[in-house]
């Protein structure tokens, strides 16, 4: 006799749960599709190999800053990064991170025209948390 209302409650909880799962799934799918949510993360060799970035697309490229290639003109900085086998010239009008220097490992986000990588952001690998890679 108590069964009917109990079933009804159970159904309510089930529907509630289904709604939550559905909303969450939708939220994640929407978030993944937003611009800037995901981008390719390449080494300099891979970037050179893939060639120019499709227009409007952004990729990330990582490498270490080559000594002697850093040139500043006002807010614009040019430098080259390498993964040890090939190098890419980077140009950015954005401020560089505090830890930026020759030899630093950086990640640049932006687009590649085949010659120069135009970075909309340059990050240095977080200096606090990571061990030097080789010693």
């Amino acid at each position, binding site marked *: 006799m108590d069964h009917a209302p109990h079933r009804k409650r159970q159904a309510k*909880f089930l529907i509630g749960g289904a709604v939550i799962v559905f909303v969450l799934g939708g939220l994640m799918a929407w978030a993944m599709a937003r611009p800037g949510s*995901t981008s390719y993360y390449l080494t300099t060799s891979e970037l050179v190999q893939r060639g120019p970035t499709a227009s409007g697309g952004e990729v990330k490229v990582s490498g270490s800053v080559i000594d002697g290639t850093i040139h500043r003109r006002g807010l614009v900085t040019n430098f080259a990064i390498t993964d040890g086998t090939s190098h890419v010239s980077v140009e950015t009008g954005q401020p560089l991170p505090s*830890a930026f*220097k020759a030899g630093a490992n950086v990640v640049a986000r932006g687009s590649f025209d085949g010659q120069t990588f135009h970075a909309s952001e340059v990050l240095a690998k977080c200096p*606090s948390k990571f061990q030097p890679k080789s*010693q």
Partner: protein
Amino acid sequence: MSLASLGRPSLIAAFVFAIAAATLCAYGAIKRKPGIAWAGARSLAVAAGFVALATVSLMTAFFGHDFSLAYVAAHSSRSLSGPYMFTALWSGMEGSLLLWALLLTVFSSIALRQAIHKNPRLVPWAGAVLGGVSIFFLALLVIPANPFIRSAPIPADGLGLNTFLQSPGMLIHPPLLYTGFVGFSIPFAFAMAALFTGRLDEAWFTTTRRWTLFAWSALSIGIVIGGAWAYTELGWGGYWAWDPVENASFIPWLTATAFLHSVVIQEKRRMLKVWNVALILLTYVLSIFGTFLTRSGILSSIHTFSEGPIGKWFLPFLALMLIGGLAVVAWRADALRSENRFDSLLSRESAFLLNNVLFVAAAFTILWGTIYPIIAEALTGTRLSVGPPFFDSVFIPIGLAIVLMTGIGPLISWRRMSKGSFTRIVRYPLLAGGATIVVLALFRVRSLGALLAFSLCAFTATAIVGEFVRGSRIYRNRHGLAWGPAFVRTVLRNRRRYGGYVVHLGVLLIVIGLAGQAFRTERQAVMQTGDKLSVGNYVLTYEGRTQSQTAEKQVNTATIDVTRGGKHITTMHPQRNFHFAQQQPQSEVAIRTTPLEDLYVVVTSFDASSNAAAVRAFVNPLTWWIWVGAFVMLCGMGVLLSSSAPVAAAAPAPSARRFEKVAIS
């Protein structure tokens, strides 16, 4: 014989005693001989003593500049001194693991000792689990991450400590995070003990309640201090970037927060037993996973996956904890059945459940974004990175829903509530939330996220204040107290409840501070002496550079005059320095902070030939409230931690009468 030479033998001794502890406890548990298990617990205390000796030994080597130890040479230098020696101790992997092992063995020994008096039946298995976990961390220190490796040849000076770490924030941030992560081992071990013994009442979490709260508080404050460090040291104007390393600490925080709330349902209504065991298991595994992510190098660059020196040790351990834990839960599934059912959708239980679902959903989505690059690379061979837009998009809606539930939850009564009484109790908070939206819209606040955040904070704050008023009114009416003393007595007499509300208020202040980011402005320019730059309502005038030199660094200080509406406000001195030992340039940020907004100025470079400075300036509204909110949370945590553990499952009626009864006891 120097103290440093004692380090390695101490760690080996600690390792042996941890093996003895785990073996004795497990044997005592299986053979039901508590005496043997007590000996195991004491053996773990001996292990703790040896780890402490090893830590003192390494510390002595640091203070004595003993560069014959490779770790000391790699993380400090002769010019380093004072408290930053401690920062140096845990700035590398080996030292971090040593700190972890120290906290683990010390916490375990104390928790087991306390539990022998309070809840002896769970001690043998809990001791076996804690001993087993200690074996793992000590094995790391003995084999792949030995902090006492000798350097050859012995260098004249060390490499020095990364200059970014030479900051008060980094002195306390890592130990707080580790205290949090390690602290969760205690409730985890007792949950496992409850499963092994089949004693699945609420004893396992009431015995360890203080440890859970302590660990959670340390983790919470540790995360905020990490953000404060990033804000004041790194010079990019923000405090949280959804970096995998940050996420690694935030994900277990979310599941731990869910756990803190859901145990209340088990305590009051004997429900959600499986869920609670699963949550603490998940929290523990995620906190180990976080350490694995940050320390294995897997995230600094994804293709260093296999190069991580301790990564291959962590993965089997993680798998054992997760699969073993889940298997034990499945084995006990019958005994974990709820003793009650949900009576109504509109009940405190349902509200708690929804709160839990939201926290776990937040944890899951952030975990997804964090490990998606690894999954994508494994499946498709291409490396991806997941950026802040993803995390903001998923977390902001879930976070706002959590804020809403923080307000609604405490207003709903246990078991069921009529719609009429719910409407009555919720009308003032609704009024406050609605009024906030209207007022802000009139002031042309256009950011939807910020509008919702402020409005929901007003809703929830009103609900919480209402709870305080209702509580205090009882003391006013019964004892004729003034509002002030009545308020203090309310909080002190029911610390668990009102301490929780104080924590909630702190969270709301943090949310307000975070929402302020919607209105942040940023400007940058290369400035010659005399140039002006306007940002927000401020006008910055660059008045030139001064140079000086110390033993460690070359100092370049910019002088920047700040006016607002033509009136001089302050003069700021951001620096761009060069540290000789590390060959490292570093910006020192200048921040003028007020409750309304921060003016944040950083010089990213000086021109070598002229005095021109590349200046970046931010106006960050309401950021001050984040730090104030964290302080309020800390006060609430103090109230919670000072409350005594609940005696037994109390009747589920948070009425004035029960409130009085608790007050007397």
